[in-house]
């Protein structure tokens, strides 16, 4: 027994082949780091500070006050507006795997005591593409916030429109933007937090309409996909093209905020706009 233990220690010490700690390979810097370290940092690359993807459930857990989240429309599921082959089957499989019914979770919560409406998109679910359910839940969230004088914080991530819903998915851009405008015209505060990746029809609708637009470091933000542009112009794009820092430089983002500071920054911004513990009465 003691011999076995000794064997294991020797093997590890010598970098033996039966012990390999799981590693994380960063999509930005290509650097390798122990997965445990990456997870410990809530999915931030220890080498380059790329802010990786979180599930909606994880994001809510690190952002809002414990036990404060009350979900809206949790059971809403999309039907199949253009009878797209195998759309329902694909979704059933994803529901099983992710514990989500579609690509966004919305609800009310408090952040350090300040009440707000929160929406979080989840890229595990069909690349967080926007179809009927995403559009409807986001529109309802803004309408609820407008009626109840609450601010809205949206954590965006998306590959764009949900192609399997055809033109109906495109129309969700109008539906969500209309609801954002309604909330805004009534004086409501809307903070967008862009997370990896925010692209396509979501960039071209509610993600770009925040009063305050925040991005996490090193994340991808754009309208057109990188490959589409490369095919159009027939040249390779620079590595930093469409990263948060690039869009910040071009004037489309107010600030880049690290994940470990996000909760505190959001809380300050809410309070600066009068949304303190009593709500927005004053």
């Amino acid at each position, binding site marked *: 027994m003691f011999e076995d233990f000794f064997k294991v220690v020797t093997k590890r010490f010598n970098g033996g082949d039966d012990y390999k700690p799981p590693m994380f390979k960063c999509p930005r810097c290509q650097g390798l780091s122990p997965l445990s370290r990456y997870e410990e940092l809530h999915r931030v690359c220890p080498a380059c500070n790329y802010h990786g993807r979180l599930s909606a459930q994880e994001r809510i857990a690190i952002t809002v006050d414990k036990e404060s989240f009350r979900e809206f429309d949790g059971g809403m599921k999309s*039907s199949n507006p253009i009878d*797209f082959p195998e759309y329902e089957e694909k979704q059933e499989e994803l529901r099983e795997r992710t514990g989500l019914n579609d690509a966004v979770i919305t609800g009310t919560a408090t952040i350090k005591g300040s009440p707000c409406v929160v929406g979080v998109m989840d890229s595990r679910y069909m690349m967080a593409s926007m179809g009927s359910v995403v559009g409807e839940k986001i529109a309802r969230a803004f309408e609820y916030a407008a009626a109840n004088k609450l601010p809205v914080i949206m954590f965006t991530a998306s590959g764009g429109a949900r*192609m399997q819903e055809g*033109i109906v998915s*495109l129309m969700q851009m*109008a539906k969500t933007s209309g609801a954002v405008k309604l909330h805004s015209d009534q004086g409501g505060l809307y903070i967008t937090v862009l997370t990896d990746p925010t692209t396509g029809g979501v960039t071209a609708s509610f*993600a770009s309409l925040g009063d305050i637009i925040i991005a996490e470091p090193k994340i991808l933000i754009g309208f057109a996909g990188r490959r589409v542009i490369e095919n159009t112009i027939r040249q390779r794009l620079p590595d930093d093209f469409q990263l948060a820092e690039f869009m910040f430089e071009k004037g489309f983002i107010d600030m880049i905020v690290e994940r470990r500071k996000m909760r505190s920054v959001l809380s300050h911004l809410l309070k600066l706009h009068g949304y303190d513990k009593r709500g927005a009465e004053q």
Partner: protein
Amino acid sequence: MSENKTAWERIQLVHNTGRPTINDYLPLVFTDYYEMHGDRLYGDDKAIIGAVGRLDGRPVTIIAQVKGRDINENKACNFAMPHPEGYRKALRLARQAEKFHRPVICFIDTPGAFCGIAAEERGMGEAIAKNIAEFMTLRTPIISIVLGEAGSGGALALGVCDELAMLENAQYSVLSPRGFASILWKDASREQEASEIMRITAEDMVRLGVAETIIEEPLGGAHNDLDKISENIKEYLSQVIPEKCQKDIDELLKERYTKFRKIGAFIE
């Protein structure tokens, strides 16, 4: 004449004929028009034109995506693929229309917003998003007409309106059938198959609540009789514009919001 063409046949018709463009329709539908240039922020995008003119004597603002009729025209207008400054010009002129109580008429004819470095650097996403949100509450009637193809967010940026009309053979899609096939099936050559399942025809748009009206084309397509198709477009506008102008503006805005608010398919 309704001829029941397939989606693929309509795509061929729109692309491979001398299909009329906004530059053909302008003199036949409107009078006294003056083109207005520039977004006052960066430049003047030739892929979107703006004009002030008259429809049946009534002042209107016209915003239109421009397709070329030959290679030189197409180069000049970037094949009707606008940059952000095109959309910002459109918004500037739409706000001006609101100020002077003129209805806005948008003509959509684009494969999509341009995909390029400069377009991203100048905030294509922001430009489209802003148009969509601002058109939703613009306090003057907006009518949009799809002339040929309407691709993606680049079309929707001129498509938030009180009523959308489609020319009979026009198409409206979330992305091109080619892009659809290449993303979903990793095989762009299956574009014909994609075009048939995507639901992109004028009839599909009416059925899905996206469009209200189909403007009939002459036998064989709009290119066969420019006078006739222009007359049909004018007849539609002459009926719908006074109707919308008479409406109480708050009522109209409520209906505009609801038109888009109710599009979607879900179960609870």
